[in-house]
């Protein structure tokens, strides 16, 4: 049976069909839907959202050492968090197959950087597979698990935004039953990486890499497509699909098993074509390797290293290669029609509980160190009230660093509930232990909102739908040694401003938990839509500084879009004239 599946759905399907028993991860675009799909098979596959990627990776590693097949999913920056277990699991190796699915985000559609995960394969000396569509995504999960078991190594499956979020046809199969007996077999020389054993592992790691390279030469995941002799293109992942569109006459070495490099195959391909072009998304990893083999080639001289590739980008590369220009008729609209269109960036939703916190922070002369989640949108105009964003957890720790550096203004850190459990707790511990004075705000909307409402340790519910202990952020804060812990309602602006001012003025660290659920998650509004009393409105624009998408204004008196308004009433709290009225009262 054929189905139209996204790359992420196909990866989940592959894990199911391959008999995976344990699947872990932390949500992150573009990887999130893998576990959300796989959990539909929760009768067969144990699935969990772990607090962070390091934990997820280690849970999968444990499952593997007990003999079960496992996958762990994350976005590219998640592998930075999980790099520690990856680097040494490469030494100890696996028992049951283990595939780490890592989704890159070229073009940074939903990420803070554009790192190329292929470096981790070489860095960690582990094999990497790279699918170019959903069919391959499914097949390569199965292949990855087989490689993992045959060579006793973790395998990285590198997806990307356009593989994970494109749909294509996939043939479904049934689930294979594992023949491998479960049960950890004691073997300290393999599984205990104390130095005297790790040195032996280090030698076996290189031997394994050589055997993997041989296997990559023979793998059906790598293939030569012979067409013209003039140009040969070496490519992998989604870039392969663009190559087929833009260079229909070229011969192609299509790599699916991208590391270790299949050197014999690359040499065989190069010998049969006149010129070689390397088309790879992001860094010049393949190109540098092909050059190191002594094979002349072009790559980043014509293919950009920044941003994602596309047929349009490759058309420009091709023009550059041929010394020609892009045909003018490819563009249909002139810049007079589209040149000055107003942007429509993502914004905090109407009624979002984060809005009140940023409005209150705008009443305080502070530096705000931010973090990763929906509340990152508070950095953009008109709120413009988040000053830094580095990585998950850094909203807490950078506040402390600025404070200790003697930053003249007080520093406030802000992060979400899921991010707090991911990597905020150790930072809070640091502030308490090292006698910091930062104010840390946890904007607790009771879910992992930005990635589509995944549960976390504070929600009292697991990915598989089971009830679990609802961890209290306030209790964790107190346990870390923070004495000033206060919970506020972010829709009460007056109290929010007063609590924040008190915390910020204090010489002690404060933990402020701003608690109100994400309205999208609970699928509720807070009240009836408001409307503007036009006679009362002074056109001062105070409400528009909230950046609420339900408030529409092209100059003059603003209008409330009743389809979007969630009835939070923040606009009326900031309106000096109280010009917003509730259409009609509803019982809540």
């Amino acid at each position, binding site marked *: 049976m054929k189905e139209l599946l996204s790359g992420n759905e196909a990866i989940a399907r592959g894990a199911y069909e391959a008999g995976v028993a344990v699947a872990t991860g932390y949500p992150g675009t573009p990887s999130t839907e893998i576990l959300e799909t796989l959990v539909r098979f929760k009768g067969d596959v144990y699935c969990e959202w772990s607090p962070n990627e390091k934990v997820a990776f280690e849970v999968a590693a444990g499952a593997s050492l007990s003999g079960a097949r496992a996958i762990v999913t994350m976005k590219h920056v998640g592998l930075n968090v999980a790099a520690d277990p990856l680097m040494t699991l490469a030494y100890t190796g696996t028992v049951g197959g283990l595939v780490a699915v890592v989704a890159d985000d070229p073009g940074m559609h939903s990420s803070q950087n554009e790192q190329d995960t292929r470096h981790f394969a070489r860095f960690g000396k582990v094999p990497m597979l790279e699918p170019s569509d959903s069919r391959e995504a499914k097949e390569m999960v199965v292949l990855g698990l087989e490689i993992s078991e045959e060579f006793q190594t973790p395998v990285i499956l590198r997806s990307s935004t356009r593989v994970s979020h494109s749909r294509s046809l996939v043939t479904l199969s049934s689930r294979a039953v594992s023949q491998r007996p479960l049960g950890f077999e004691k073997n300290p020389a393999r599984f205990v990486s104390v130095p005297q054993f790790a040195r032996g592992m280090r030698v076996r790691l290189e031997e394994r890499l050589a055997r993997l390279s041989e296997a990559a030469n023979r793998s059906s995941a790598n293939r030569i497509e012979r067409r013209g002799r003039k140009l040969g293109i070496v490519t992998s992942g989604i870039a392969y699909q663009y190559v087929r569109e833009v260079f229909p006459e070229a011969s192609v070495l299509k790599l699916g098993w991208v590391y270790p490099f299949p050197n014999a195959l690359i040499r065989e391909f190069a010998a049969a074509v006149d010129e070689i072009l390397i088309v790879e998304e992001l860094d010049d990893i393949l190109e540098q390797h092909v050059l190191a083999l002594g094979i002349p080639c072009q790559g980043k001289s014509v293919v950009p290293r920044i941003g994602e590739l596309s047929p349009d980008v490759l058309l420009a590369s091709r023009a550059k290669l041929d010394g020609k220009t892009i045909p003018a008729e490819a563009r249909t609209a002139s810049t007079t029609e589209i040149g000055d269109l107003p942007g429509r960036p993502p914004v905090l939703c109407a009624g979002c509980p984060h809005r009140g916190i940023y409005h209150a922070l705008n009443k305080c002369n502070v530096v705000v160190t931010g973090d990763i989640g929906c509340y990152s949108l508070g950095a953009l105009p008109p709120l413009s009230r988040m000053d830094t964003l580095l990585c998950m957890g850094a909203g807490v720790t950078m506040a402390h660093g600025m404070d200790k550096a003697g930053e003249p203004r007080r520093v406030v850190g802000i992060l979400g509930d899921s991010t707090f459990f991911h990597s905020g707790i150790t930072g809070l511990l640091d502030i308490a232990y090292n006698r910091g004075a930062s104010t840390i705000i946890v904007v607790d909307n009771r879910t992992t909102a930005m990635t589509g409402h995944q549960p976390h340790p504070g929600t009292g519910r697991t990915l598989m739908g089971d009830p679990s202990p609802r961890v209290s952020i306030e209790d964790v804060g107190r346990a870390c040694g923070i004495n000033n812990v206060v919970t506020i309602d972010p829709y009460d602006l007056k109290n929010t401003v007063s609590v924040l001012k008190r915390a910020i003025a204090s010489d002690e660290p404060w933990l402020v938990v701003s608690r109100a659920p994400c309205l999208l998650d609970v699928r509720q509004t807070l009240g009836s839509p408001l409307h503007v009393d036009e006679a009362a409105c002074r056109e001062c624009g105070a409400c528009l500084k909230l950046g609420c998408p339900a408030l529409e*204004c092209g100059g003059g008196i603003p209008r409330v879009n009743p389809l979007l308004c969630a009835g939070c009433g923040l606009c009326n709290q900031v309106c000096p004239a109280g010009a917003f009225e509730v259409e009609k009262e509803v019982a809540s």
Partner: protein
Amino acid sequence: MKLQPANAEAGPSLRQETTSVVLAGVGGQGILLASEIVARAAMIAGLDVKTNEVHGMAQRGGSVVAQIRFGAEVFSPLVARGTARVLGALERIEALRQSDLLAPDGLAVVSSQMIVPVTVSSGQASYPADAEARLRSAFPRLIYLDAVDIAEQLGNRRAANLVVLGAMAAALGLPDESWREAIRGSIKPRHLDVNLRAFAAGREAG
């Protein structure tokens, strides 16, 4: 309708056997559902199909774009500039924003909604007052309709996406039965009737 190949003398051009469709709008307008229906209709018609959409921001008020490509064998899920056979949009400036994806002789189906972005409300930018004139100038083949009004008259304004799909259908050359089956497979039974009628109303408007 056949696409004209780009001038080979001027520079490189693309394979042209694949039909490309672009859908544009704002989060919450049902762009992703409409995309699923087009893709299913092509699949039911026995064609290879690929789609692409950007996730994550759909419920955060940002621009939403979905691309669907179908044919005998489809490679790229992304549509190249100037090659889409049809562009369907549920908001005026979102149609303009995607206009350079449409082929010179392509069809644009645009619903007349105007959704003011926060960048405009907060005074950082202005919404073009001449949006309709720009649409008429950018799209020589334009079907301009109020899909929300048509859907509302049929009983559910949320079916506006199906009105736009209906108006696009004739230009896509897929069999009627494939569309009906695709709609049945993608819409919950209790909303099916109004959506089928919205699609039919769009067909008439097209």
